[in-house]
Each structure stands twice: as C-alpha cells, then as structure tokens.
C-alpha cells in the first residue's frame, strides 16, 4: 500500500491548501491522515475542528461555506459511508462547495477486514454521488493537485474529493 518515497507530503499539502484559499478545517481522523491532522491541529490560524462524526463535519463546513469560508473536511473512507446522506441531500443538492480529503483504507484488498469492502466501493460511491475525485499522487507536487480541486469547487459549486492513499499524508 506504499506510494512514493515514504516521506509525508502533509506539510506541502497544508501549504497548498492555504495557498489555494482554504480557511475552514474540520474532520474525523484516520491513521493515513495523521500527519495532516497533526499539522492542522497545532496551527492556531487553521482552527481545526475535531468533529464527532463525519456528517457533522460536513454540516459545519456547509455552514462555514454559506458564511463565506472555503472549507475542507477530512475523513477516513469509512466516514464516507456515514456521510452519504449529508452529501446527497445537503452539500450536493444545495450546490455549496466543500473539499473532501478522504483516506483510502482497504486499497487493493490489503488491509484489516473492516476496511476491505469500503476500500473497494469508495470510488464508485463518489461516482454515484456525482462527486469529482482524484487520487493524490505522491510523485507529483501537491500544489497543482489541490488547485485542481479548488478550481472545480469554484466552477461547479459542488463537493470535490481528493483521495489520500497510504503514505502521502501520514
């Protein structure tokens, strides 16, 4: 499940998020995102909200977006299951932009049993929700990948997902 050199790209990713204008951060952590969460959580300016549930984080991001912020919500892909209704009947339906950063547990069928099915169906679920997505590539700079998402948010006013495989944001 390793991608790239094993060096975390979390610092570069956070810098790219801020550069792209993201200014509201909430989520529920994943071990594959621990570097990202750690950086955001100790960054007073980011004011990272440690949410209780992924759908609640999506709700907070939605409210922040109505209030003029550009929000990002991070979660494990298990949380995508929790979030399906929030995405379908809130964020997608009202056409309010939110960046989703979703870890990819269970990628390639090589993980703990509770992650295998969601690992297999995560991308089809996003397709069914009509949410554009892109798997982060550790071999490429983070900036253009984040800007791709930001530009799509701006042009479609809907959620966009960046998928984080093992290693990239740990």
């Amino acid at each position: 499940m390793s991608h790239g050199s094993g060096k975390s790209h979390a610092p570069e990713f956070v810098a790219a998020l801020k550069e792209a204008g993201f200014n509201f951060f909430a989520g529920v952590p994943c071990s594959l995102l621990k570097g990202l969460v750690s950086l955001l959580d100790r960054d007073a300016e980011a004011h990272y909200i440690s949410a209780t549930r992924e759908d609640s984080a999506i709700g907070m991001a939605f409210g922040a977006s109505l209030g003029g912020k550009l929000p990002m919500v991070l979660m494990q892909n298990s949380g995508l299951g929790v979030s399906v209704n929030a995405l379908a009947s809130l964020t997608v339906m009202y056409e309010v932009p939110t960046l989703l950063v979703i870890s990819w547990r269970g990628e390639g069928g090589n993980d703990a049993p509770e992650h295998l099915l969601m690992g297999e169906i995560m991308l089809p679920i996003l397709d069914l929700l009509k949410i554009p997505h892109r798997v982060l590539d550790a071999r490429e700079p983070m900036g253009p990948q984040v800007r791709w998402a930001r530009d799509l948010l701006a042009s479609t006013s809907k959620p966009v997902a960046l998928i984080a495989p093992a290693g990239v944001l740990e």
Partner: protein
Amino acid sequence: MNKLDAVKALMSVVGERDLLVCCNGMIGRELWTVKDRPSNFYMIGSMGLALSIGTGLALAQPKRRIFVLDGDGNVLMGMSALASAASEAPPNLIHVVLDNQTHASTGGQRTISGEVKLESVASAVGYRATHRADTVEALTASLLAALAQPGPVMVLGVVEGGTIKGIGRVEPTPPQLAARFAAEARR
C-alpha cells in the same frame, strides 16, 4: 403551546441582521408560513445537521447572531453535534428546540424526548445556559434572556404534537435557498 405560536414568538425576537438555520420536517414549513425571509436557511434534507450548519456558520460569521431552529427528532439524531457546539462555544449561537415528542412530518410517531430531557443534555455537554418553556410567554421571556447570554444557549419550548392545516411548502429550489441565504450571511 401551539407550535405556530412558538415560531411566531421566535420570529418576534429574531433581529433583522440575525441569521436563522432551520431543521427539516414540519418546522421548516411552519417557519416558511409564519415568516419567510432571505436570512432563513431551510435545511430540507440531511436530518440532524441543522446545529452543525449553525455552528459552522457561527464560527465563520462571529459578528452575526445565529439562531438554529431545531426539533426534538433532529436533536436526538444529531446529538453529538451538541458536544461540538459546546466545545467550539461560539458565543453568538442560540439553539432553539421545539419539542413535541414526535416525528410530525412522518405521521406523528413518538420520539424519546419525553424520557430524555434535551436541555439537560445541552447543559451536560457544556452549553453556557439552557431554558425550558411551556407557554408562549415563558418562551418569549427565555428567548429575550438568551439574547443577553453568551452562547451556546439552548431554549427549549414544549409544544403540542400534530400537524397544522394550511401550511405551505418551501418553494425556491435548494440552490436558490443557499444562494440567497449566503448573500445575506456575507452582507
């Protein structure tokens, strides 16, 4: 207390600059009928998330007063959001709950708010103040008191169950509802 009278009491204390996020179900339709305004956001799906939306909005717009108009079914479904509201503690957040102990829009099935006192939950997770009101007069007095208290504050009004004849349905499309509210929220 009649639920429409409770909504009217709320709208009598909501100021022109104040923003109101309303939960799904009959309450939204009742609010739409009593007093629609662009500064009302009608959450027509995503049950349980009105408080989360209000919390995010309150953090994004700290100079505005944010009301969340919620029902017992919504609060019970999204109960962990009370903990987040208390933890983030936006002082500009007033959480109004109309409790009829039923899921009115699906046929009046019972909820468990008769056994679980929602203002006690709010108090336990760290809301700065809570109120419980059984009459329109008491609800108005509680709302006025809440205006002077740092949030999050919960004002729970005990209301009658059943549906009210003649209420309308929210008409604009969801993107229209979001766009008009966002324009008000950023003004």
